[in-house]
């Protein structure tokens, strides 16, 4: 169930380049949020910036050494890019913030009877929303492909290494791993994946990357769930500001915050 809550910042640190790790004490959301769901954060108490900002949750877990069986901590990994995240970067331990969550429909996991490979493709900061999914799928045949512009934009590599030995990395400038986009990398690996079908594939990243994926992939071979990013007004379904066009003949424009953020890639229409 969605709630609007006050919560306290436990930690807010610059982990690399423009990326920050924010940890929040929020048992309500932490104990309920599922992979692919998101939260809305008010970045300032005054009306500037005005709207909340949506964030996918990187981790929802126990406090170190708490010894209790209830998840209480939320971790958000964000990039300082605009006026909202600039405000957030100033937060320190103890800062009181206001959250709404958990929001949206998360990823649907493959049935337990499914024993083939599962592929995760993340681009840029989009990889963050795939981490809780990877944790849920850690005991299965998991492939993770991570792409970024350059080495300093590659995120969560160490965390993913703990979940799978099939981790592949691409950078557009060639400063680490495969030289090219993560979709180029996927194409080169496709032959390896081509032995069985269908495959469960999950992706999150910039729209251009997802468009590229849609052009590359065969929907006969893959079931593709993508988590979309969108400018949002409210985040909880009130304003219809964050819509994406779909193949649905009755309601083509669907809300990323409410019907999404996870959609089947084949249902999305990019004009």
């Amino acid at each position, binding site marked *: 169930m969605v709630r609007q809550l006050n919560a306290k910042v436990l930690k807010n640190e610059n982990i690399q380049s423009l990326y920050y790790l924010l940890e929040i004490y929020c048992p309500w959301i932490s104990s309920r949020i599922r992979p692919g769901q998101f939260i809305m954060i008010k970045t300032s108490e005054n009306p*500037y910036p*005005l709207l909340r900002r949506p964030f996918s949750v990187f981790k929802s877990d126990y406090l170190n050494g708490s010894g209790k069986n209830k998840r209480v901590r939320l971790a958000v990994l964000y990039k300082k890019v605009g006026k909202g995240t600039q405000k957030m970067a100033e937060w320190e331990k103890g800062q009181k913030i206001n959250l709404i969550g958990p929001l949206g429909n998360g990823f649907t996991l493959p049935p337990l009877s499914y024993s083939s490979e599962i592929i995760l493709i993340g681009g840029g900061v989009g990889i963050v929303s795939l981490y809780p999914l990877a944790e849920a799928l850690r005991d299965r045949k998991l492939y993770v492909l991570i792409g970024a512009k350059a080495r300093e934009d590659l995120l969560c590599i160490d965390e993913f290494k703990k979940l799978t030995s099939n981790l592949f990395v691409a950078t557009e400038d060639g400063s680490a791993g495969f030289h090219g986009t993560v979709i180029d990398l996927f194409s080169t690996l496709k032959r390896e994946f081509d032995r069985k079908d269908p495959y469960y594939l999950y992706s999150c990243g910039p729209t251009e990357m997802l468009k590229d994926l849609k052009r590359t992939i065969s929907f006969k071979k893959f079931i593709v769930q993508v988590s979309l990013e969108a400018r949002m007004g409210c985040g909880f379904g*009130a*304003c219809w500001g*964050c819509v994406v066009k779909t193949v649905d003949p009755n*309601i083509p424009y669907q809300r990323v915050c409410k019907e999404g953020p996870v959609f089947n890639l084949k249902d999305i229409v990019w004009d």
Partner: protein
Amino acid sequence: MPAQEPNLSVKIGKIRLKNPVIVASGTFGFGEVFENFFNLHHLGAIIPKGISLQPIMGNPPPRIFETDGGIINSIGLQNPGYKDFIQKRLPYLKKVKTHLIINIFGNTQKEYVELANRLNEVSGISGLEMNISCPNVKQGGIVFGTDPRMTYRLVKSVRKSTTLTLLAKLSPNVTDISLIAKAAEDGGADAVSLVNTFKAMAINIHSLKPELGNVIGGLSGPAIKPIALRMVWEVSQRVKIPIIGMGGIMKADDAIEFILAGASAVQIGTANLINPRTAIEVISGIREYLIKHRISRIQKIIGLFQSNKKAPSSFQMT
């Protein structure tokens, strides 16, 4: 001595609202998405997302853009149409123990009249709010809301087809909003709601593309509040019917300003998206204000900001 509980109730047409705080169409969905945030029974009235006879798919994204102190939207009145609204949305809304005012719009006078006729037969509805002011679509009625004669004719024809309390929601994108308000009053509206959003736009200077798919949208939020307030005050000099004030109300103090300027009730719009509990907080803030100034009924402060009215002594004391 314990403070006397102030009476917050106001009358709009035939409707007696338990308090003057209404949630604005287009910012409250069909109500259900707010039920986790507060008990909707506390609201003065609910105005769900505007509806038309036929479903409308809305404008292409991006549909929303944040500016300094405001947001520009071009949703384009996306809605499932009258039939779907009655079947799937109304049953939930009817269960909420407050007044329900349905925001309607059409392409033509005939469509407004037909919608009003049909809704007149439906139980559980207290009033209609005619949108004659959406800046985002041609059929949003703005063509009716920018010309006093057309406003008069449209309101008059809808008035004949409904016994429900009738509101006309006005556009600020006119030379003199009080002329339009007067035309709505003359046409038989029970109240006027003002203002809808201000036509606006934003350009991405790096891509040279518009920030909205529709290029032009409507500006709302705190940035427009002083202008909206001025318009409410001007209209209050001109019409006798109640005014429902709106435009950038974020907190109780803003709402009280509108009431002092002449609004009998207020609508909360954009603020619902940011703090979904705004309406509830505004209601309690108004109550505290009345207690602080030892005013027994909200009626007493409607339009109190008038050069010829003498303020009660409690105001001079603080």
